[in-house]
């Protein structure tokens, strides 16, 4: 991974964290999980699978460090989602809609895992008002964002203008 790619990936993650904790913390209907979305989008790039897993872990850890839930919870969940993404990505890049649906399903898996692991570790901050709404609102919002931004994201990270043209 070259220095420019490292900077791009770092900036994207930082932007996702800041937007998630400010802008999207105030919206009630459109509630994406931007950092999880970025992790899923990494699976579509040409980054090495091990590197994607490490990025997913670090991204989750960053969100854990900024929140009040137990440290390592999101790091584990994001890593598992990234693994699922790596294993199924060949089926995702056949068309824009498929990419969106794939992203939505992976997000759903992430939200379910987060609630499950959060329940096991008694993380009540993750189980407050609207936890069941999150099961569909977050995947839908991530699906919409993936439909719009997935190709652009992959082209930006891979620095390949021909990627994801769906021809």
């Amino acid at each position, binding site marked *: 991974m070259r220095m420019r790619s490292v900077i791009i990936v770092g900036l994207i993650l930082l932007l996702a964290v800041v937007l998630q904790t400010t802008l999207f913390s105030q919206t009630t209907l459109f509630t994406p999980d931007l950092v999880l979305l970025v992790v899923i989008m990494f699976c579509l790039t040409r980054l090495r699978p*091990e590197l994607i897993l490490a990025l997913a872990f670090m991204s989750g850890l960053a969100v854990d460090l900024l929140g009040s839930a137990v440290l*390592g919870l999101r790091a584990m969940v994001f890593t598992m989602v990234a693994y699922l993404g790596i294993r199924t990505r060949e089926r995702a890049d056949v068309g824009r809609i498929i990419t969106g649906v794939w992203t939505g399903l992976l997000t759903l898996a992430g939200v379910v895992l987060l609630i499950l692991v959060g329940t096991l570790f008694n993380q009540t901050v993750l189980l407050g*008002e609207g936890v069941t709404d999150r099961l569909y609102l977050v995947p839908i919002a991530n699906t919409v964002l993936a439909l719009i931004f997935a190709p652009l994201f992959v082209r930006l990270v891979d620095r390949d203008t021909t990627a994801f043209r769906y021809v």
Partner: protein
Amino acid sequence: MLSRQPGDRTFPTLITLLVLGLLLMTFDVRSEGGGVTGLLRTGTQSMVAPLQKGAAFVVNPVVDVIDSLTNVATLREQNRALQQDLAEAQAALVAVDDDLARLELYEQLYRLEATGTAIGRTVAQVIGQPALEGSLIIDKGTADGIVVGQPVVDTSGYVVGTVEQVTVGTATIVPITVGPGGVAVAVGAQVGVVMPQIDTNIMRLELDAEEPVFIGDRVVTSSGSVRFPAGYPVGEVIADAAPTNDTLSTEVEPYVQPDTLRVVVVLAWPPDPITAVTEPTTTTTTSTTVPASTTASTSEGDG
């Protein structure tokens, strides 16, 4: 079906990271948010806080405009109801003024003096909310006298929650509606505890009761609370309930919706907290002495 190629190191990497995650979780739980993990949290939050403050400065007005446009009809209705409430409140204020004048007269007659136990207040702006969590991030930290465990209310004095983590410039508030513990409360002369419930803002009220409670009864913090000063309003009872075996159980709707808060007030309570002081720093808004950096989790002593 999942695809996998021979010689691929993805699975061992996954297992390694999961084990690392589990170790981190165990370490964080065992250290109760302090130690190295607490230091990591403080460092990360301190680094991201300026960006969050900047983003909140730009984003908040935009969100307000969008909210206003989408809720214009509701806002008109609310405005009418608020005008009516204001008229009633102004009438009540006149009566309170009379009482205050009478109180002042009695104080002069009996030569009474205030004990000086007023609670210090630090007004803070909500700058963010961690992803998919119920907690709130505010723009005040140890530099402003904020300490872990301090109670937080809204601008009307309604109970919001407690300070869970604090850095130099920011603090994380866990509302009572999601907080892991309960809050000791009173309904009239009866005392008990309100506890958060999963997937709802409505809280469970358990009372040591001899008398029934009714819809609309006011729930306030009790003098038995170790987390909040007594008498602060929490919410109101939303279902009638009668005691069985000297206890009763019902539901309470909190006065505060934490998601909608933009400004909160942190109370310097207890006035002289017994905290582990490493490097004392005098606060700017209160006389509380605080450690330079505190990240330990709040002890949920109530209930």
